[in-house]
């Protein structure tokens, strides 16, 4: 059984999505506790994060590992209760209207999940009104707004203004991210935090929840 755990972790680190999924399935069929199986892929992706931080992994490596993580998570999650995957807090995330870039968001979602957040991904090209409705409906701790073009980044200010206008701003922390934005832009539009990359975003989100 220990072999399954190590093999699964290695498959995630090496970005072998098909293999990771197969091992996860075999581990569950073999009677391993789902929490232990899930922890193996979390450990794997966390090690990938460390390799990335140390400059030993390039984006192509990280993306393949994220794919392996999600492929195996899809097999494991039906056996888990919500607490194993979302104990820290609720995080609603999406890419703003006019913007369909999803690569950076996928990496952020991955790091948030392994950090213990329940993540609700609204997807890409999300109209401003949808963010407002989802904040009302889901009452997240944090709203994450992503943009990847200098024209779509302007939409972020509009969404934060709408949160204010709807009396929701004090109920949710707002984080922003994406290639064109900066801490200064976050300050200008009144966001609570800027995540410069997926690792930074997950660390700041944990900071907001008071778990660092």
């Amino acid at each position, binding site marked *: 059984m220990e072999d399954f755990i190590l093999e699964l972790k290695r498959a995630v680190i090496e*970005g072998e*999505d098909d293999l990771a999924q197969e091992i996860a399935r075999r581990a569950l069929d073999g009677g391993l506790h789902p929490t232990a199986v899930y922890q193996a892929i979390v450990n794997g992706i966390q090690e990938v994060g460390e390799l990335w*931080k*140390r*400059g030993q992994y*390039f*984006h*192509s*490596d990280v*993306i*393949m590992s994220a*794919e392996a993580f999600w492929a195996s998570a899809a097999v494991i999650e039906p056996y888990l209760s919500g607490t194993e995957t979302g104990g820290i807090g609720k995080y609603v995330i999406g890419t703003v*209207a*006019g*913007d*369909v*870039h*999803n*690569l950076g968001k*996928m990496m952020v979602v991955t790091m948030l999940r392994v950090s213990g957040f329940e993540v609700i991904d609204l*997807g*890409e*090209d999300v109209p401003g009104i949808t963010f407002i409705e989802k904040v009302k409906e889901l009452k997240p701790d944090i709203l994450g707004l992503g943009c990847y*073009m*200098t*024209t*779509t*980044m*302007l*939409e972020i200010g509009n969404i934060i203004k709408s949160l204010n206008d709807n009396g929701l701003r004090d109920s949710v922390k707002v984080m922003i991210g994406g290639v*064109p*934005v*900066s801490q*200064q*832009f976050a300050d200008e539009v009144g966001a609570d935090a800027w995540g*410069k*990359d997926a690792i930074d975003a997950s660390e700041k989100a944990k900071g907001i929840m008071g778990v660092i």
Partner: protein
Amino acid sequence: MTELPHVPVYTLMHDHVMVLTGVPAQKYHHDAKTLVDTTVEVAEYYRTDTWVAHLDNYNIEAEALGARMVYGEHSEPAIDFRDPLIKEPGDLLKLNTPDFYHDGRLLYALECFRLMKDKKKGRRSGTFCGPFSLAVALRSYPLLIKDIRKRPEFVRDLLTFCVDDVIIPYLRVQKEYSGVTSSGGVNAWASIPNLSPAEVKEWALPCSLLTTEKAREFGIEARSLVADYCEERLENFDAGVLHQAFDLQVASAGKPLLDLIMGRWQDYPLQPVLDYTAKYREQGIRVPVRIAINARVLRDGPVDRIVGLVKRFIDTFAREHELTISMHPPADTNPDHIHAAVAAVHTFGQKPVRENLDEIEFTPPRRESFTEWQKTRRAITE
């Protein structure tokens, strides 16, 4: 272009032009005359040195081949990577060379290049999507990376298609229709760390070289950059990897030439660049270096920081390299920042470049708003 008396400033500012001039996104991305006229007008306002028709370069060929696009109300079009054109490797066989006069917005792009070359200071150049980035545009980045690892033969077929069936025929039409003599390939997907240096060498470099070689046969200088070094995590800056990136850039250009475009050059140390060019300088070769003022710095300012950065770049490179300073201002950049940057380059970069730039007095220009400038200009011309 005639030799300028100062370090040249090169701008790539289509998002900024659209927002500054208030042209609706749909019109801007479909009407070539509007794009060219507004680009030239804004370039004149900022007094930049050369004008190039920059459009949404990553989209044009993929859209013409049938890639699904998202047109934002206020933003540039984007390929919908959630639904890539090549969903399965077999889909490649369904694709054919586009009709350059009818498919997608190819004619719009060709018109942009044609109109721009007729403008005073306009370059006779076009643009295209570099082969590796075009492969990403058709397949999406995660799927293409997976293909590289699991289906390398398919990736080779895809890159061959991109070069032989799309880019080369497109470059021929750029020459015939638009009269361009050179064309620059955008290729951000082939940058580091999007790919490792080894991946760039194996997958992005050969198809870029092939494009250059084939285009030269019919008289176009076509080069698509590979291995722009843009590590965002400053703590991961690695001079060794940077030098590998430079080796790949030099191989791609066929001569010593360095592009420092997307990285955090306001924060990276510059000495590793000098270390790399030392071997050329010892032979008396002035290596062309194109370095960008980071887009976020240009947007966020303040002016003093931008001017300081320009001065540092010029002080480090201008005396022993062929320096060009590049600017890619984001959509809502404060025009004062761009005016200051252009004026700083023209002042500190006056040739011959002084030994001590601190001896040069510089005050950022006080300029009228774009609207006021337009009114004055129209009053004069009318």
